[in-house]
Structures are given as C-alpha cells and as structure tokens.
C-alpha cells in the first residue's frame, strides 16, 4: 500500500522507475492511463458465504466474502441495518505483510473500501430492518488479499461491489418477539454502485492502477470512488506524504472517472454472464 517503500526499495530503483516514466514508459510497458488485466470470478465461496468474488488485477488477487447476520441496530439508527467492510493483510499474500492484529495499512484499506460502499449508498440500509429497534440484517463484506502485486484498494473495492451485488441471504420476519426464517432468499437492496480507482504520483507523473514496484516508489496515491452516474463519492490521499497540486488532483479525477465506466461495465457483464449459467 505504498507504506513499505523505505524497507525494500533503494534510491536506485526509484530513479530507474522514475526515469522510465520521464521517457513516457512504465516498467511493465503500460501507458500511464492503462490498467492491468482485470477479472472478476463470482461465487468462489458459494457453499458458505452469502456472496463472494475473486478479483484479479494483473498478479494482484483479492477475495471478498459477504456474510449477512442478524443483529441489533445501532442506538442512533434503530430502523436501519448495518453494513461494514473489514480487511486483513494476511502474511500469506506478501512477504511485506506481517502477522498480528491489523495495522494502519489494513485499517486504511478497510476504511477506504467501506467509504466507497457507504458514501455511494450502494445498499439501502433502511431496507435491512426486520423490526425497528430490535432486529436488523448486518452485512459484512470481508476482504482477504491473496496475492499482493500492488493496488489492493481497487481490487478490493471491485471484489466487494461484485460480492454485494450478487449476494443472496435468508429472509427473516418478526413474529412474537423473535426473528424467524421465512425460507425465502433475498437479494441485498442495491441502489447504486461505486468502484474505486487509484492514481499514483511518481515524480510529477500520474499513473493509474500502480503495480507493487510503482507503489514502492510513489510519492503518494489518490483513490477516488466513482458511482454509476460519474459522481465522486469518496476520495483518499494516501500511500505516502508527497503533496499534490490542484491540477494533479483534477487530472486524477478525470482518469478515475474514465476507468470507473469500464469497471461498472465489467461488473454488469460478469453478473449477466452468471445469470445465463
């Protein structure tokens, strides 16, 4: 997540990659605004999770699983369900990830992906209420990176969106003070979709969908959540403390909106293809 750079990358690597960019090229041959091959595989945890998706972004792989539980609503929103994104950075996925409780990069990943879902109002939590003040559906979208070659946020955001939009869960109704299953399966109340797109600044160049090597030398990244109507729903500057000019921010927004259109299309087609099966 760009926070590992000092440990691993020398100034030589930095100069090499930045110098390459000065000549208009990225080290893996992509154009500055070109993303890596992007794939969504649905229902990879079909037997246990209510929804699931595996996303590959080049060699980066992330799985998101959705669980729908019953729980009590929060005191300040008694008639709304709960939606939450969590993330771990399991040491299985990279030599850079460590054992132990989630550290800042895992927390940021979860919170940024969560913000994309929440701020786009992807799920209508008002429809996740079984009995006001008593029982609501709690939707957990949990993210597990499996192979980390850069840009976990975008891969995770896409996996979460796909998993949420294809989840099926058991309906419950309120009877005599208890939630009882009706035997019916429901879709989540999806009312929007948002995907996150990350642009890295390396030197004064902006590149989309940074690979691990690029993340390691980046000055910072800007992640932008874009919804179906091209509205910006969340932003996060992170991945280093390098500052951005207003122009760089505006350019990044434009790159993100373009990429988001492709990703929304990819989600739609993937879901359509699944229905045919």
């Amino acid at each position: 997540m760009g926070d590992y750079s000092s440990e691993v990358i020398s100034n030589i690597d930095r100069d090499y990659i930045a110098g390459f960019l000065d000549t208009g090229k990225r080290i893996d041959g992509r154009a500055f605004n070109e993303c890596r091959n992007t794939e969504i595989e649905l229902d990879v945890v079909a037997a246990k999770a209510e929804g699931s998706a595996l996303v590959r972004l080049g060699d980066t792989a992330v799985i998101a699983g959705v669980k729908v539980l019953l729980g009590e609503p929060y005191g300040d929103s008694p008639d709304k369900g709960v939606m939450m994104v969590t993330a771990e950075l399991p040491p299985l996925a990279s030599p850079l990830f460590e054992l132990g409780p989630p550290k800042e990069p895992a927390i940021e990943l979860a919170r940024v992906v969560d913000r994309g879902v929440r701020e786009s109002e992807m799920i209508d939590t008002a429809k996740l209420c079984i009995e006001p003040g008593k029982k609501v559906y709690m939707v957990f979208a949990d993210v597990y990176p499996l192979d980390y070659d850069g840009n976990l946020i975008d891969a995770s955001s896409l996996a979460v969106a796909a998993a949420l939009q294809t989840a099926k869960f058991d309906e419950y109704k309120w009877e005599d003070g208890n939630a009882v299953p009706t035997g019916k399966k429901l879709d989540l109340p999806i009312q929007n979709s948002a995907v996150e797109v990350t642009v890295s600044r390396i030197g004064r160049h902006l590149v989309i969908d940074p690979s691990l090597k690029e993340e390691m030398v980046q000055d910072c990244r800007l992640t932008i959540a874009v919804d179906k109507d091209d509205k910006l729903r969340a932003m996060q500057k992170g991945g280093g403390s390098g500052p951005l000019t207003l122009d760089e921010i505006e350019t990044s927004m434009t790159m993100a909106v373009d990429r988001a259109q492709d990703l929304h299309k990819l989600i739609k087609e993937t879901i359509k293809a699944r229905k045919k099966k």
Partner: protein
Amino acid sequence: MSPETKPSFLINPEGLRIDGRRTDEIRPIELKVGVIKQADGSASIRQGKTYILAAVYGPRELHPRHLTINDRAYLRCVYRMATFSVPDRKRPAPSRREREISMVIANALKPALFLEDYPRAVVDVFIQVIQADGGTRCAAINAASLALADAGIPMKTLVPAVAVGKAEGKLLVDLGDEEDKYGGGDVPMAMLGTTGEITLLQQDGSFAKEELVEAMGMGVTAMKYILELQKEALKRAYAKKVAIEGEDVDEYEDDLETDLGEAEIAGEEDE
C-alpha cells in the same frame, strides 16, 4: 448523550448557515501556542466549539527501536479523542477511525518538515481532542503545525487545513458538526503554506467533478486565511516570550520570515 435531532434546514432562506455564517465563512478560530509546559512545543485551537490540544516531543530517541528510520526522523502522530468529546461516550481504546486519522495527519505534516535533519530520532505529535464539533482532523493539523514550530522543529512552512463541503446544494467552507452529519459531503484538506500543494485530501458525500474542483478552490482560499492566523499566533507567542526576556519583537518576525524563506528554497530542492 442527548438524543440528537436533525435540524430542519442547514441553509436558511437568506443563504446563511445554521450558526449564522456565510457559505464561505470559517468559524471563529482561537490559536494559542505554548499551552503545555511539559512539552517541547504545544498549541491549542478552538474552532467553533471544537477544542483540541497538540503537544510535540522531540526530536528524541525512538522506542521501540525497530521503528527507527536510518536517514530521517520518524514523525509519529497520535490523534486521540477524549471519551467525553462526543455525544456518546467514546470507548477509551483507540478506534480504527482514530488510527486512520493519525496516519493522514502525519502525511499532511511530513512534507513541511526537515525530518532528514534528525536521522534515527522520533518527533512525536500528540493530539488530544477535548471537544469534537466538526472538522477535528483539520483543526488538529492547524494546531499541530504550530506545536511543531513551537518545539523548534525545522520546518519548510506551516500547514493550514480546513474542511469544505456541501449542504442543500451549496458549497460550504469549514463544516460544523451538523453540516458534516446531515450535509451532502465533506472534503478535509491541508496544504503547504508556501506552495499551496495539497497534503491532506479526503472526501465523502457526492460531488460532480467540477463541483469538487470548485469546492477545493474555496478551501484553498480559506486555508490561506488560516495560515495568516497561524502566523499571528506564533508571533504573539514569540512576542510574549521575547517580551519576558526583554528583547525586541520585530527581530523575531524578521527571523521567522527568513527561516520560512530558507525553508521554501530548501523545500523546493528537496521535493
């Protein structure tokens, strides 16, 4: 723990906000430098009802050692809210939100510092939110920036910060608590006082691209104003110190300019 109620409007028919401000008007800001005797540097900020203290310790030896960075000081920011600073009691243990904000604050401040002057050391910035009424991460940066200067940490520039946002279709500067909660978007920003480059940028809500660009422009204008308030607070603090020591105030002012000027140059070389 009063049950909260959503106000019936955030912008009144005259175009004024719930606390009577114009859309581009920031809340009253009171900045004080040198408020914690035990700290190497400190500052407090009251921005509306938001009340925050910042203390700086260091450069000093870093524990645990494995966090040491060989070629520069480690800037450790810790943003914490008092349990009683919010309507419901916050649990005492650091939340994920507090940890994320600590991280973005560190990122916001770092480009303003010459951390390479103190390899292997730590500069600690401890931020305590006493009362949270909107815009705490930006207010915290405003105060932390002064506390760093008060501690004599070599700086390229001060870092002003402000949140812009939206409510009922209008772009707003320096969101208050209700505007943040019930409005349509929140964009906390920080910038380098000298170059205007952005060091903190987050957003939620819903904005068209053009709208967001316009909002950020308003933010920059507000931050320029806050930068002046920061400079004045520093001067006041220094004047007081100097007055006590019986020296001339103006001299310091010159020094400050010079220092920041040098910092800028060094900064440009460095970026």
